[in-house]
């Protein structure tokens, strides 16, 4: 049973997610990559919202914008200080 069809807003967001994901892969410098990845994560949050999944969006918001970048940034700092 079809309960929903794609609306233009969802198509636009999906396209932006695809563009941002490619940008993450194409960024070579790790520090910049974390920034681009944060932007990509934020687009995933928007995607969850336009797909009517606010509960997922809330966890995604914090994990992609704070948790993950923090852990990776510190791991990079630590490996450079050695």
């Amino acid at each position, binding site marked *: 049973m*079809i309960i929903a*069809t794609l609306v233009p807003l969802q198509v636009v967001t999906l396209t932006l997610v695809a563009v941002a994901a490619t940008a993450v892969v194409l960024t070579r410098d790790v520090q910049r990559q974390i920034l681009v990845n944060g932007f990509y994560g934020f687009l995933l949050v928007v995607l969850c919202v336009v797909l009517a999944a606010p509960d997922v969006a*809330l*966890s995604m918001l914090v994990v992609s914008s*704070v948790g993950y970048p923090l852990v990776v940034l510190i*791991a990079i700092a*630590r490996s450079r200080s050695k």
Partner: protein
Amino acid sequence: MSRRVRIAVFLPALAVFAALLAWSLLAIPRFGDYRGPYGYVLNRVATPERHMTNVVTAVVFDYRGFDTMGEEFILFIAVMGVVLLLREKGRERPGDLTDAIGSDAVRIGGSLAVGVAVLISLWLIAFGFITPGGGFQGGVALASSVVLVFLVASWRAWKGVANEAYVDPFEGLGAGGYVVIGLAALIGGLPFLTNFFGPGVAGTLSSGGSAVFVNWAVGMEVAAANLVLFGEFLEEYVVPLARS
């Protein structure tokens, strides 16, 4: 490996994976095609039965509360592993580290933001069974709000609010509290983790029965687990700074 060999290995692999991806993409159901019966059933029965208006939370903390307990312990054990690897006893304490933020605007504005963020996080946990949110979402948000203290103030201020001496017990209390609530149902003659206390009035804070306490236990566990995790990682960052 030379460039030519790399390409010779990469191209066949690319072809195989592209073919597999195309094959699976052609076979997936259309967008919005929902095949499972449970979503329809739960959307219909969750609010009348459990008086929770957020069906996601009703599923996570009530209908499949036992699975969530497993998930919670995955987080607990993962964080325990990080602590085992990174926490060193008697390691030099970066007590004299002068990393305090110089800008008054950043310090004052940031400190105000901490209060607002903590309040929103607590609201996310408390109203998790009424509006979107819940223990997991609110818990990670709460831990992140506290990280702001490190970002806008100093390492010493962070140590003041997120010291492992009192964050660790909260983590155990949250994880253990979940099991205790499950056992309380068992003592009352009900199956493990059965929702008791009566459902209350839907749409108000006094709804959801004992699943609300499960929600708070998870909120406490997730917030504390993330604080422990961030604390261990921040220490990895700060200790070499203090040494140099």
